[in-house]
């Protein structure tokens, strides 16, 4: 639900083109504290590019990305990133560090006291239901779901304002996937952070936007429709939305999504 709170993350006509291919057409989006926005669309629709622009890993060709009302620039991007948590497929963990070292990397870099790091790690392990005795393991010794939980812990470590997820459950098997979905929804509720989540899976979009989240459906760099999931399903603004919705074995709300083989 769009609230009256000042937006945390805001795209103002931001666009990005790669070698004459429009990745993101001038885009207007805004996310306020407590918001959940799910970007959904087929592969190559530009949803990942939106996340990368939010993080300053890419800079828009035109328009602006603002964070806490401030124009994002190379000068302030490092500070801004510390207020954002970024989770990618498989967690994007550093293979040379143990789970614990992955989670605490930034805190150690900022010279947090040891006790504070340990306390925060214990909190996060409980929140993400990660077995505390597995914290000493290297990523290759963890299951896909565990890696994802470590990725989430790492993103949450500095208690950021915004969480950005890029296909977080893309490579996880269906049973663990559903478990993780529920856990993520719970974490979103408990932490009350602004969340931007990218997926191509309609049922996943439905689950994450269930409470009060919005869905933005993208195609070829444009947002075709933005709003509640029900609106998209019941009154699609574009024939493509009808097609996209029909192509996926959707969910009646409240039903568990059917397992899909990839």
């Amino acid at each position, binding site marked *: 639900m769009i609230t009256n709170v000042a937006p945390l993350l805001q795209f103002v006509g931001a666009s990005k083109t790669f070698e004459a291919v429009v990745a993101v057409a001038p885009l207007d989006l805004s996310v306020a504290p407590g918001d959940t926005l799910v970007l959904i669309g087929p592969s190559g629709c530009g949803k990942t590019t939106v996340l990368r622009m939010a*993080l300053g890993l890419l800079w828009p060709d035109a328009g602006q990305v603002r964070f806490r009302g401030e124009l994002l620039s190379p000068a302030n991007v*490092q500070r801004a990133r510390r207020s954002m948590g970024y989770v990618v497929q498989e967690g*994007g963990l*550093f*293979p040379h560090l143990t789970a614990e070292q992955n989670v605490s990397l*930034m805190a150690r870099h900022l010279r947090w006291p040891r006790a504070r790091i340990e306390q925060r790690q214990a909190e996060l392990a409980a929140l993400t239901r990660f077995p505390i005795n597995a914290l000493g393991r*290297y990523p*290759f010794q963890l*299951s*896909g779901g565990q890696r994802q939980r470590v990725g989430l812990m790492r993103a949450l470590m500095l208690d950021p304002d915004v969480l950005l997820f890029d296909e977080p459950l893309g490579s996880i098997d269906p049973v663990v996937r559903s478990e993780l979905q529920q856990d993520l929804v719970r974490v979103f509720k408990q932490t009350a952070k602004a969340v931007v989540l990218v997926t191509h899976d309609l049922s996943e979009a439905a689950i994450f936007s269930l409470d009060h989240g919005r869905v933005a459906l993208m195609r070829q760099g444009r947002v075709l429709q933005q709003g509640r999931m029900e609106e998209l399903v019941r009154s699609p603004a574009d024939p493509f939305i009808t097609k996209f919705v029909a192509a996926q074995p959707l969910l009646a709300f409240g039903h568990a999504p059917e397992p899909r083989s990839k």
Partner: protein
Amino acid sequence: MKLSSRQLSVIVVVKLVAGEPSEAATARAADATLVPSPVPAQPTPGTAFRIASKAFTESVILGEVVALTVSAAGVEVEHRVALGGSRLCWDALASGRIDAYPEYTGTVLQEILHVQDAADVASLRAALRPLAVGLGVAFGFDNTYALGMRRARAAAAGIQTISELRRHPELRFGFSDEFMSRRDGWPGLVARYGLAAKDVRGLDHDLAYRGLAEDRIDVTDLYATDAEIRRDDLSVLRDDLGFFPKYEAILLYRLDAEEQWPAALAALRTLEGKINIAAMCAMNARAKLDHLPERQVAADFVAQLDGRAPRATAQRESWTSAVPERTREHLVLVSLSLLAAILVALPLGILAARRPGLGKLVLSAVGVVQTIPSLALLVFMIPLLGIGAPPAMMALFLYSLLPIVRNTHAGLVGIAPAMRDSAAALGLSRWAILWRVELPLALGTILAGIKSAAVINVGTATLGALVGAGGFGQPIFTGIRLDDFPLILQGAVPACLLALAVQGAFDLAERVLVPPPLRSGRRCGARRRARRAD
């Protein structure tokens, strides 16, 4: 013992530095402007009278005789044993790095003054004076070149004179590299006698005798004082056209050394005419055939000159005292050059990975350095850094750059861009990403590069002995010169063991420093794929 091709190549290698690189010598001979370079009036100030000898037994013995005589006159003396060939010794004398070395009149004439005509000692002395070099102390023997064959082979072919070689182009010729490139050596001989030979190769003078004995070659160059002529029952071919010039043994010294150490020069003049050809032949035989150290041979000779009984025999440096010293020298050469290479190559590798354009340039530059043969590189360093450890360290340093730069670069560019994004997204600075993520991820590859540089260095450092840097090369090359196999092993075995130890140390370092998922033979990507496949 068979003369293997490997030994031959070692010998060729030795001769490249010890003798004259033939191309360089020819080029110099052709370039009249280079010759003779006047001696700069800036001798390195030093307290010791510095003597060098050329890299063969007779010169080393003469060097020792000179050193003992100077030392007996109460002057501190340093002897750079077997420094190199004529050109190296002359350059060292001309540039003031040494004060004197024993030479031969024919060599002075042909290789230093580049004069064709015969000249007596007096006119040579006059010609060298403007170069601030004195020629004195004619020791009393003429060690001219000659050609020799096994007596049986010469008789079978009916060869007694050099002219008769014309009829036998099928003979296999093995000459010292210096002889091959000197105008008073093989090229001049071919021109004067009109010889045609198909099979001519360069090898070490000392091993040419072995080649003769084992029927690997038929003809070689000899020196008239060589001990082996009698031992191996060789036929010396008559120089029927009188080609070979006189090679009277004399001492070359810097004129300013005479001002600095008048007592030394006065003592040396007493050696004038004291060594006749038989005496020299006998001394060569004691050193080469009886394996006595040159120092002892020289000491016995000097003692007998003074009318004293030979002193108690000086033992050759025993291996128990020699090996630790050689090990220390070798370790210093390898570790300092490697350390410097790491300090330079690591930043270069990082730079190359960050700036692909510059990276190509850096990689090809260090690659080009690697293509220079190690001996050539050592020789190039001599004019810049003199003799001893510095040129050897510089050459080893340059050689170590490529493996480290290349592996650092490869390790860094091999990191998945997603890793860098993950690190950047956390809010780490560029330097923090390098330090906390990129370098640890590349560490295994970088260590492997340092390891291969270190292991190669241990081997290459043996060549340092050729420019006076010491190390395990010292016994190896002395052993080759003296035909002393145990002495060769005294250098070769520790060098081998050191290489293995270095390898082991780096394997250990990898276990300690590199986190388990990144150790060689266990790539976590492969593990992940395996896991997903179950």
